């Protein structure tokens, strides 16, 4: 954590791309990961490789372990067996490459911090121990806020924002991390259509800048519109790969089983996909 800000600052400060030499190692390699809570299995033998930068949706029924998969990759829940590699290295050596947007519910929205404070936390990683954010970090944080369109709210306490604005702030904090891989736990849960659009436009932009983005996503109807790849999860990995190959009725049936209401959603999602194809 001793690296300086300038180390990886891209030529233009607003440019999110950073260095762009293609990685030789797979971006993410999840090998045989199993997770249990109180002896109950939540994830079982997950094998997942993301070789090149992609925009990946993680999809599955409630309780399928979508959030847990992200948390297991990030070391936030203990892994019973298996391992995770990021660009071929252990997580602990690659933390500076990771951006994270946690689930809404995990946040205390009444905490006395301003929007700018929260985004500045994204720069703490590059600051390391003891150093405080200064003008440079502040300017960068403001740029990230502008990027998600809430710069005018910088001085507000975070609880005074709407749900969509809050999600944008957390997205800005992840941007401030200048990461190579972003993990986002339902960034569009409970937000309105306008915010969802802003969020996915931005993810698309990150993807074009050769970043990898993994998103826990709950809305089957929008999967094929937003993502390159999809990971279908139901405790086990049902399938993963490009949306057009993996997001099929057979796979959805496998992931969702007999849950009818959801299957109707899925049916609609597939019709949407067929229409757009």
């Amino acid at each position: 954590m001793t690296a300086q800000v300038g180390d990886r600052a891209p030529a233009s400060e607003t440019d999110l791309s950073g260095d762009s030499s293609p990685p030789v190692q797979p971006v993410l390699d999840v090998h045989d990961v199993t997770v249990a809570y109180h002896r109950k299995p939540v994830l079982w033998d997950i094998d997942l490789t993301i070789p090149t930068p992609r925009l990946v949706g993680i999809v599955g029924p409630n309780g399928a372990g979508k959030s847990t998969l992200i948390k297991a990759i990030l070391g936030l829940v203990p892994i019973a067996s298996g391992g995770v590699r990021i660009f071929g290295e252990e997580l602990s050596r690659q933390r500076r490459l990771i951006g994270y947007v946690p689930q809404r519910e995990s946040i205390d929205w009444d905490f006395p911090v301003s929007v700018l404070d929260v985004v500045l936390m994204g720069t703490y990683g590059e600051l390391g121990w003891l150093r405080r954010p200064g003008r440079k970090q502040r300017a960068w944080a403001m740029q990230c806020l502008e990027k998600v369109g809430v710069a005018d709210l910088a001085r507000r306490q975070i609880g005074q924002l709407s749900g969509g604005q809050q999600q944008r702030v957390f997205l800005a904090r992840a941007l401030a991390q200048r990461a190579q891989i972003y993990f986002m736990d339902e960034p569009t849960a409970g937000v309105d259509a306008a915010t969802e659009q802003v969020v996915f436009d931005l993810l698309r932009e990150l993807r074009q800048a050769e970043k990898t983005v993994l998103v826990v996503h709950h809305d089957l109807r929008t999967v094929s519109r937003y993502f390159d790849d999809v990971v279908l999860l139901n405790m086990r990995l049902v399938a993963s790969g490009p949306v057009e190959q993996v997001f099929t009725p057979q796979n959805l049936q496998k992931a969702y089983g007999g849950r009818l209401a959801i299957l109707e959603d899925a049916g609609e999602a597939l019709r949407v996909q067929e229409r757009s194809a």
Partner: protein
Amino acid sequence: MINYNTMIVLVGASLLGASSGLVGAFAVLRRRALAGDALAHAALPGLCLAFLVLGERNLSAMLFGAFLTGLLGISVVSGLRHTTRIKEDAAIGIVLSVFYGAGIALSSFIQKQTAFGSKAGLHTYILGKTAGMILADVYLIGAASLFCLLLILVLYKEFKVVAFDSGFASVQGWPSVLIDLLLMAMIAVTVVIGLPAVGVVMMAALLIIPAASARFWTDRLGPMLGLSSLFGLTIGAVGTLMSASFSRLPAGPVIVMAGTIVFLVSLLAAPRRGIVARQLSARRERRQMALRATCRALYELLEAELPQVRPLEFDEILSHKSWQRQELAACLTQLEKEGVISRTAIGAFLLTEQGQKQVVETVRLRRLSELYQHQYGSFEGTLDELDAGTFIEELPRELVATLEEELKSSGRFPAAGAV
């Protein structure tokens, strides 16, 4: 005049209050306040055991004993939580009562031993006694306060990110567990040095009350820490002075009573977050909603006959929606004041030219808001924003255009009157 002894006590209690306020702010924000309470109660058996071992009243040894059993208590809470299905509140309840019970039993046992007699004075640790404070105690409190202050100054950013979002902090590579342990250590040190003055029963209050009160006055962490320290200092000082002037009152409860006053004032009078301010702004919002409802009623009554605009009778407006006569009268008076309507000779209400524009705009925003909510389901803002429809202005322009198109095709897009 304040004599030397009172001065010592005053400085000691104020310092203690200030550092409790400072550490307590983080304890409350990180939801460790009750853990502080468990720690304080779990310290009592340690005090007694240290006395039993040494056979004499040695303050630093007894506080060290208190520190050890206090930490043991907290470890048991954490152990219960992680290895069994007992939740944190139940674990705290178990530890708090078991350790405190053991402490009370031990202190009664010591009290009954003729060898020690009442000179052990252990009962003062239960409810606290500031009067006996000596200079050495003040040095101890000062050292502990300095320790906490320096730790927070140096690791401010680290404490902040872990307290706010420990998951994010871990992903970023901060050792959240270690930082939490440091916080717990600060809580333990503060609680233990506070025991002789405030007592095991009330110590947690000195951690929680200044922090909870400070939160009412500010939305920033830095100012909250400062204010919480200041409140703690005031509470400590005032409580001590009050306890000193009524010699039979134990210090702990008096300090807590002083804290209660600070808390109540904060709860009621703080701007924005206080009860009074909240009530006032809620009332203002209700009033605004009633005014908008009146504007919409005026428009709806005239809608069929537009572009003609005729005066409306009071009873006609009243019967349009089921509302209170007085409320409507008040709203109409207000709208007249704002120049939206004028009163005709026979007492009917006529929209002014400016009023027509305003009413049309109110109805437009409201109908767009309704349509938007209907089509997109989830709405993120407050009721007031939904009712006023002001958020519409912030939506993408194409989206608003589509919504307006839809209103037009169903003939519900409001148009100006005779203007």
